[in-house]
């Protein structure tokens, strides 16, 4: 209890907690859960966008998308490392993902049906992610906070590129405009749900706030996202598929209509449109890569043995 008080005092002073430092078991548990989920999200998140690399319609877009998906793999790597500082191994985390025990961001359980989805994901999904990650860059756990700083810088780039593509298509040909509005219709609600359930339905939040793991609530994040993106979408001639969406003069906030939380909970429980496909893709890559990893290990052992001679 004394150590807990001291720990909480350090956080209150804005100090970072580092790997060797004492921390409550629950703090460690929550961080492992969050960071590994976050890492899995990057790894699984490569799939829906990755599916469009082979179809990107210009050299520039293809290069941008390749760089983006590469960044996601890189983020996955930092985050697995950050989680490892808490005493969990990559193998354990991967095993938890492949067996279906671990979660990853719901958003990646939706399919990318057209090329416009890639733009919308870059702009809106990454836009929401940045709101969350900017907050997490303030996180009290040093390695997570530092990973977030680095990730945020790259995500900001993706966000800009996604927006640029969407704006181009929004003033493009009839089919391009239709394609991008369709994509917005499909991704709008899943994106809003990315920020997580309403604060009233989010039991972890108070503790996470107290320990400085989070510094904002889900609803705050969602509100920031709306206030930034709604005016820009409308300006581009795109209409979010929410008949209740309105600007509240009093608070200066954009107010959304009812969110389809039923769907959110179903997707979390594994019943989203692409859950099984995502896990299958990860499992298949893992299975088909087994002989390759074995060859790497065998070769490394042989090298080691030669060096020892």
């Amino acid at each position, binding site marked *: 209890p004394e150590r807990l008080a001291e720990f909480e005092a350090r956080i209150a002073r804005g100090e970072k907690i580092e790997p060797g430092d004492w921390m409550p078991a629950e703090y460690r548990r929550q961080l492992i859960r969050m960071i590994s989920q976050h890492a899995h999200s990057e790894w699984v998140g*490569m799939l829906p966008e990755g599916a469009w*690399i082979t179809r990107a319609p210009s050299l520039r877009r293809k290069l941008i998308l390749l760089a983006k998906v590469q960044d996601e*793999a890189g983020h996955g*790597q930092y985050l697995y490392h950050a989680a490892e500082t808490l005493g969990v191994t990559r193998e354990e985390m991967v095993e938890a993902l492949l067996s279906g025990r671990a979660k990853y961001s719901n958003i990646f359980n939706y399919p990318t049906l057209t090329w416009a989805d890639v733009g919308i994901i870059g702009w809106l999904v990454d836009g929401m992610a940045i709101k969350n990650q900017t907050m997490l860059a303030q996180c009290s756990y040093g390695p997570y906070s530092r990973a977030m700083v680095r990730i945020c810088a790259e995500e900001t780039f993706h966000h800009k590129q996604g927006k640029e593509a969407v704006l181009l298509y929004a003033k493009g040909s009839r*089919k391009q405009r239709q394609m991008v509005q369709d994509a917005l219709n499909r991704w709008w609600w899943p994106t809003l749900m990315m920020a997580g359930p309403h604060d009233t339905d989010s039991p972890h939040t108070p503790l996470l706030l107290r320990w400085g793991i989070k510094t904002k609530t889900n609803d705050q994040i969602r509100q920031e996202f709306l206030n930034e993106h709604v005016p820009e979408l409308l300006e581009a001639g795109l209409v979010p598929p929410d008949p209740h969406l309105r600007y509240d003069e009093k608070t200066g906030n954009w107010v959304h209509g009812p969110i389809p939380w039923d769907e959110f909970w179903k997707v979390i429980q594994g019943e989203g449109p692409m859950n099984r496909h995502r896990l299958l893709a990860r499992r298949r890559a893992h299975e088909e890569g087994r*002989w390759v990893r074995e060859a*790497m290990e065998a070769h490394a052992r*042989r090298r080691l043995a030669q060096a020892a001679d």
Partner: protein
Amino acid sequence: MPLDPYLKEALVAKLTALADDEVVLAQRLSEWVAHAPILEEDIAIANLAQDELGHAKLYLELRQELDGSDPDRLVFFRDPLEYQNAILVELPKGDWAFTMVRQYLFDAYENLWLKEAEKSAYEPLREVASRILKEERFHLKHSVLWVERLGQGTEESHRRAQEALELLFPYAKQLFIPLPEEEALVEAGVVPDLKALEGAYLEEVTRHLERSGLKPPQGGYVPKDRKEHTEYLWSLLAEMQSVARWDPEAKAW
């Protein structure tokens, strides 16, 4: 160096063939992204695809300087029979051994070619070759290591690498067949003499393959020119060009 019209045309053809190899190889590499055997190789393969595509862009920009052609039109609106890539790069992605053995055979060729191209009498090509070579050295290190790992890894990895090599090796020789117009470029010192490089190439790759426990096969079919393709190219391009060609009214992507 000023290019006479004949040399200019020959160089346009050569730059296109160089770019086509990179575009098609990048496409095959792209198929792996997010499906590699380890996360680190997802990074590596995305990086390779990006580099190869970037090189294609550089070559096509050189071409653009010569004839004003638009690189995106060339990549996304040319038909399969107009592509001048070598068959090596269009073969389906196969397993990881196939991918890495192909990459090695291509990287080793490209490194040799670029080292000579750095001495080109045509300055813009010289510059581009230096830029590309910086990245290609890393590619070669990466694929050299993979050939060794697979060849000397497990029985299974050895078998798979050897099987890949059986199919791929003859196609590597196609990389050293010059274009019909290439001789004049060689004489003018604009591009390296492929025929002069082939011996060094075969020696180098044979040495590394054998050191890795792999045996380059004898014989096999070597395509006679870059007009030859396989059944796989049409589908590769159909997929790659599907969005760009989807809406004839779209002005920009």
